């Protein structure tokens, strides 16, 4: 009805525009042609570091492992001055309390996966409880997974309602919605899933769980960034972006920064609105920073594994 506007509008999903894959890939490859050198490179690398969600999500994670990861998060490479910390540490709900304690006073956030990560094949009730547990343990952010099966079956309202319910269960914690783009298949579907997530209340949209291939790629992230932009112009609300998995080299991370800069601009170029879901990326960035500062190519042995 005309004149009535709600904070969260539910659009007609058939209006999620088509994406031409060839065109999107060409545009994405153009970002890789930008040449980032000297101070621009150093500043970019520091920005990348500060945007990392340092992640451990393995069946064999223990409290000891998580504590060591948190220490690394706070002390990436103490012999190198002027290095920022990462943005957050990302763990399973059972490890949130340990991480929170280890990171006290550091300013680094604790993100927790939830909702039956990574498959998302669990009941609604279980997913909500999983989320509430993580939040009560102290998680600042929740990374949920959407129900890909329901999505492929065309039950978009189900997917939407689920995200809205988890958003509510998060309370003050920020919600990242993982689309698992590697399972969605086409760019059209990725766009549609992005729109559903944003309209349902996501604070971030995220590409992948990192458990399957393909994970994040430049073209997929481009599609999602453009979805964020269209949503922002239409509704006036910012949503963050997190590509996860498959980004282990600094050069690639810098390509992502170029893409964010040229698609969304200044407001998104910080860790409040952009994150990298990565584990080994941090050390590669440190190696590159060392190289820029000393002029000499580095070896992995000189940087702690965790």
């Amino acid at each position: 009805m005309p004149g009535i506007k709600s904070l969260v509008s539910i659009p007609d999903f058939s209006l999620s525009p088509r994406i031409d894959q060839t065109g999107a890939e060409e545009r994405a490859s153009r970002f890789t042609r930008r040449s980032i050198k000297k101070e621009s490179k150093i500043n970019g690398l520091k920005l990348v570091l500060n945007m990392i969600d340092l992640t451990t999500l393995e069946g064999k994670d223990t409290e000891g492992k998580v504590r060591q990861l948190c220490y690394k998060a706070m002390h990436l490479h103490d012999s190198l001055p002027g290095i920022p910390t990462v943005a957050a540490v990302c763990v399973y709900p059972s490890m949130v309390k340990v991480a929170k304690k280890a990171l006290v006073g550091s300013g680094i956030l604790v993100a927790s996966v939830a909702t039956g990560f990574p498959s998302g094949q669990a009941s609604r009730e279980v997913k909500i409880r999983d989320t509430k547990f993580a939040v009560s343990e102290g998680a600042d952010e929740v990374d949920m997974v959407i129900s890909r099966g329901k999505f492929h079956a065309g039950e978009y309202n189900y997917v939407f309602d689920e995200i809205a319910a988890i958003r509510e269960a998060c309370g003050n914690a920020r919600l990242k919605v993982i689309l698992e783009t590697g399972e969605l298949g086409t760019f059209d579907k990725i766009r549609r899933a992005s729109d559903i997530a944003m309209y349902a209340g996501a604070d971030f949209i995220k590409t992948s769980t990192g458990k399957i291939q393909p994970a994040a790629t430049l073209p997929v992230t481009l599609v999602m960034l453009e979805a964020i932009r269209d949503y922002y112009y239409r509704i006036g609300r910012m949503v963050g972006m997190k590509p996860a998995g498959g980004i282990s080299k600094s050069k690639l991370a810098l390509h992502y920064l170029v893409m964010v800069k040229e698609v969304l601009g200044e407001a998104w170029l910080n860790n409040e609105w952009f994150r990298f879901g990565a584990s080994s990326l941090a050390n590669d960035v440190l190696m590159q920073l060392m190289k820029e500062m000393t002029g000499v190519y580095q070896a992995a042995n000189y940087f702690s594994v965790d």
Partner: protein
Amino acid sequence: MPATRKKQSKGNTLRLKFDTSWSYAPAPESRTAASFRARYELFINGEWQQPLSKKYFDTINPATEERLSEIAEAGAADVDRAVRAARTAYDKVWRRMPAKERAKYIYRIARMIQERAREFAIIESLDGGKPIRESRDFDVPTAANHFFYYAGWADKLEYAFPNRGTEPLGVAGQIIPWNFPLLMAAWKIAPALATGNTVVLKPAETTPLTALKLAELLQEADLPPGVVNIVTGAGATGAAIVNHPDIDKIAFTGSTEVGKIIQRAIAGTKKKATLELGGKAANIIFEDAPLDQAVEGVINGIYFNQGHVCCAGSRLYVQESVAKEVIRKLRDRIETLIVGDPLDKNTDIGAINSRQQLETIEKYLSIGKKEGAEMYQSSCPLPGRGYWCRPTIFTNVAQSNRIAQEEIFGPVLAVLTFRTDDEVIEKANNSPYGLSAGVWTDKGSKIFNMTRRMRAGVVWANTFNKFDPSSPFGGYKESGYGREGGLHGLLPYLNLVG
């Protein structure tokens, strides 16, 4: 640190800020990888010969206005020497050489261009002003590929035209423009040589360097003397070629105006001609198009090579229901285009090729404003010296505006709206030109209907500015005649017999 959620008011005051605190440092390509001479003579009969005219002219770098080289100016007597050399080479060497050996020379040229790719790219950007990213990633590789492709045809002509044998024409006079100097040289020389002809080629007077470096390469490839001759000069040199009685074929790429002069000049002679002239291509976005990719295609269509492209998508027809969104996306996109030093690897839009061309463009900018169109330019900084133009969009353009009809040959896009398919087809075809067109829609059946009814030699559906040595290129109407590339590109250089 607790995260806060930002919420901003909805409305058309939303703006994205692309000039960010993190910026790209200058990333200049080093000039040392390329070398060229302070003075170039004419390349005739496999040697560097001083011009009988005793005249020279300068070629400059349009980004800095510095002089790069002194170039010989060929007078009528010089052109005559070149044509004689080409004729002798044709009669005595080239037409007698077995086709497969001819092919091997052309393959050699392709491979050697690939080996020297970086040097050619740098010189192309220095001499003409185009960004190094484009000369490196597009111009030079495509030129090499063109030679490689046509080399393969040399010994296969018996298959090309059903029930017809083939004969070369003899000596081809070729005049090429300044927008893709090396690539245009490849487009002309490769098919001519593959079909057994010899060549007298004149590069544009503002961009002779890569053709002259190519001449050096031809010497090293041991190409028999006289098979390719390069005579530098301006309009008078071109006229001398066109009017020379011993030339069998003229191949010209350039402005429609000069194309018409050439056609008149060869009337009554036996000379064959192909002309590849100007354009005012319509790029059409339907409401069901993949909008972000369509916008990217439009941007590439008009700002690639500073808009110095005959097939540039200089008229955008956008369906009215999505016009506002498309224009917003276009304006956002041009904010991230970097205008600057052609040798900087991050430059998207280089220098305008010459002062003269910049004046032409500025003339049209003021015409557009006078005609009542709204002009929008990006806010990027411009370097000091040199010839520069920011990417420009005109909205509120009418079909009858001069900026919608006349070729500007610069980074200037005219945006018009339409409502129905019939309307836009009529308007797209409503032009004396017919070189290229673009169609953006998600609906396959609409694509084929549109492409069938466009009166243009190249139609791009859901893409733009795509070139391939195997894909024929050329215009309808006043955009010229004849095709370059592919099987069809052989025909202009052959007589069909039997």
